[in-house]
């Protein structure tokens, strides 16, 4: 099975974009597949991209770097990237790198769709 099939558990269409549920560890092995998947979604120019990280137990700097690329692309288009469901270990990576001040991170799906 390709890494892209395993890194994204489900993709759901929203009124103004997409919600993507990720699964498993997002590390240097799987980040390239995640990048391909998310950039593919951005090609349809979504106003909002919501990423559900509740099933991601570990994210390393390569995973964070992938999300930075997506954030930059969304900002360049005047659109949003919202993250929710971060487990403690994943949240700590964002805090250590102070990217929790840069990304829009909320607690749950409803907040992500309203952010």
């Amino acid at each position, binding site marked *: 099975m390709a890494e892209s099939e395993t890194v994204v558990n489900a993709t759901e269409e929203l009124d103004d974009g997409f919600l993507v549920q990720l699964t498993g560890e997002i590390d240097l*092995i799987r980040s390239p597949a995640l990048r391909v998947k998310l950039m593919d979604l951005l090609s349809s120019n979504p106003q909002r991209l919501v990423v559900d990280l509740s099933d991601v137990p570990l994210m390393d700097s390569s995973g*964070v770097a992938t999300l930075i690329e997506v954030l930059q692309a969304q900002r360049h288009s005047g659109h949003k990237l919202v993250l929710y469901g971060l487990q403690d270990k994943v949240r700590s990576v964002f805090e250590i790198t102070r990217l929790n001040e840069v990304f829009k991170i909320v607690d749950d799906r409803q907040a992500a769709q309203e952010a």
Partner: protein
Amino acid sequence: MGQGEILVQISSEPRNFRVVRVTAEAAALACGLNLDEAGQVKLAVHEALANVVNHGYMGRTDQPIWVKFCLQENGQRPSLTIVIEDQSETVDVAQIKSRPLHQIRPGGLGVHIIRTTMDQVEYSRRPNGPGMCLRMCKFAKEPCPPNEE
């Protein structure tokens, strides 16, 4: 090898990192660090290994990496020292630095994570051959309770 030392050798295939991460966490807990501290050690070790593969070995996955854990369980403040050595092209250690965090861009995060999560971090040339050596140490925040035996 001295007492309280664990040596792990892996090839630079990222799928091998999990074994080293688990060993790092177990070693940290064994020498008295708490769960949060052990998690930070685990993250730092992962980022260090990723840097070896990405920057040292330029993505090659068949090169050797040695990881030594030195557990210091005695004394007022337990600590874990980790030494990671590789055979990559030697680089100027002054060039190994994290990027300023106000620059919102991919890259350079790994070194920042290592320096933030560990108490001591030192890059040098590998003493016994070509390659690089990273020595990092984490101390327990809380001192050991007095021995009541």
